[in-house]
């Protein structure tokens, strides 16, 4: 406390202290009602009847099958989308060609399509009453109401995530470093591995994390194509819905808590990356 400045001193670019406090309190109270309360509710409802009941409900064969299916779906969908994201970001940032804006719009398209419409599109493409679907069913590889459909649904919904994180970072990096490496005789693959990848790895990791969280939690698109066969095509979110509708509240919220925990880890890692590697990710926040 300095006694040289009058108590009412404030910079001309600050709001009055009263205004600051009132605005902060209003905004934070709304945030508590909207964001923090639901999160607390998930864990509270899951542990309502004690740890033992919650953990036992997770050990149920159906819950275990759901967890296994969700992990399988993510293990297929996320690497494919990461590969797509890297390829698309490379194509968009390293070359100049006509139609680039259209390509970016098409890549972003799944963001603005309802998940349910995504599911509907899959049913209309690969459903048993379409010619592609009929062929695949005959060959013994049904898509709808089976694993491929669920993977495809999760892929479409999370399709743009990795590319969206990488493109701004790679634009900011420019092409000079890659061009220098190539001039010095490095192969294309080596240039990517030793020059590009170290520059984009944190943005890539964040894109993959977000893609993974959304792929594991996808509900709308998956619920249309999964058929909801217990123990077979019911992912974690679908199982949560079925348990909830059967009034098995603790079991539903226990499974929900596992997914909420995953969201926590995703956000925690994201915050950590942002603090540690603020420069590398700064470009991505300006999209």
């Amino acid at each position, binding site marked *: 406390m300095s006694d040289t400045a009058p108590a009412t001193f404030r910079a001309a670019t600050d709001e009055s202290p009263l205004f600051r406090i009132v605005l902060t309190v209003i905004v934070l109270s709304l945030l508590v009602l909207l964001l923090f309360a639901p999160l607390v509710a998930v864990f509270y409802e899951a542990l309502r009847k004690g740890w033992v009941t919650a953990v036992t409900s997770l050990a149920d064969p159906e819950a275990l099958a759901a967890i296994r299916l969700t992990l399988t779906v993510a293990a297929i969908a996320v690497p494919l989308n990461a590969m797509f994201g890297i390829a698309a970001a490379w194509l968009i940032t*390293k070359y100049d060609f*006509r139609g680039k804006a259209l390509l970016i719009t098409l890549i972003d398209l799944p963001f603005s399509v*309802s998940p349910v419409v995504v599911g509907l599109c899959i049913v209309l493409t690969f459903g048993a009453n379409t010619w592609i679907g009929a062929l695949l069913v005959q060959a013994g590889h049904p898509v709808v109401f089976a694993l491929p459909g669920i993977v495809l649904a999760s892929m479409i919904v999370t399709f743009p995530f990795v590319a969206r994180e990488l493109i701004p970072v790679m634009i900011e990096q420019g092409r000079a470093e890659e061009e220098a490496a190539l001039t010095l005789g490095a192969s*294309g693959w080596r240039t990517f591995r030793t020059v590009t990848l170290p520059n984009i790895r944190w943005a890539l990791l964040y894109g993959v994390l977000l893609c993974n969280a959304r792929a594991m939690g996808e509900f709308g698109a998956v619920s249309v194509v999964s058929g909801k066969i217990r123990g077979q095509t019911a992912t974690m979110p679908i199982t949560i819905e079925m348990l909830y509708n059967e009034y098995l509240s603790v079991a539903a919220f226990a499974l929900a808590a596992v997914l909420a925990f995953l969201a926590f880890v995703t956000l925690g890692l994201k915050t950590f990356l942002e603090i540690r590697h603020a420069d590398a990710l700064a470009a991505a926040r300006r999209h």
Partner: protein
Amino acid sequence: MGKPLLHRSPIPGLGISAGITLTLLSLVVLLPIGALLAKGAVAGPERLWSEVNSARIWASLWLSFRLSFLAAAFNLVFGAALAWVLARYRFPGRRLIDAAVDLPFALPTAVAGIALTALYAPNGVFGAVARDWGVKIAYTPLGIFIALVFVGLPFVVRTVQPVIDEIEREVEEASATLGASRAHTIRHVILPMLAPAALTGFALALARAVGEYGSVIFIAGNLPMKTEIAPLLIVIKLEEFNYDGATAIGIAMLVISFLMLFVINAIQVWSRRRIGYV
């Protein structure tokens, strides 16, 4: 049209990156959406119109649109205020709250749906308080509104916050030096700078809300004509094996999405021309 289709580049990998991008894009995005449009074309506009043109579907489209618009408008004000508080004010726990804003992006929609329902149902913590005041939240449009505010919140905050960070204090100081009150500066200097980003966030939140399913269906109650959202009707039509009906609603929603995408792009082009960045 003087621009060549592709500028020659010394950087290798064009073939493989273009190959992977176009193959996956075609298989994963274009083929399924094309199938929806093809199905619509086969059925024909008259058939589609007769499927869409029922009181129940109009009611659901109107409900989805109205509530999405209201929720996005609420997020426009609340999100901009939150972005301002996070960018300009210092208080304990600011980092934690900044991180938590992204929660609706990371939390699965079904989890958000059952959690919000548990809170706002008549026997829930907030629902019970509201019931004592004679207000019902869950299983009414108000509940749907709350779920849509939840999913849309990060969009406005995350588009506005970086723009606030980039405002140069000198501009505000100049305004204050010229005798403007703080309120006048905010109204006439800061808000115009934030407007394009805030509108982009509004449009993104609106687009997301119109198609939202998981977080809404638990809290909505799903009464025909009253609390039935448009995406739910697609699910119902599919369960009835009415593919033409599902296609008709799906195409209606796709057209709405395209329009919004177009508006978002237009806002970004306009703001880039005006202030140089989005």
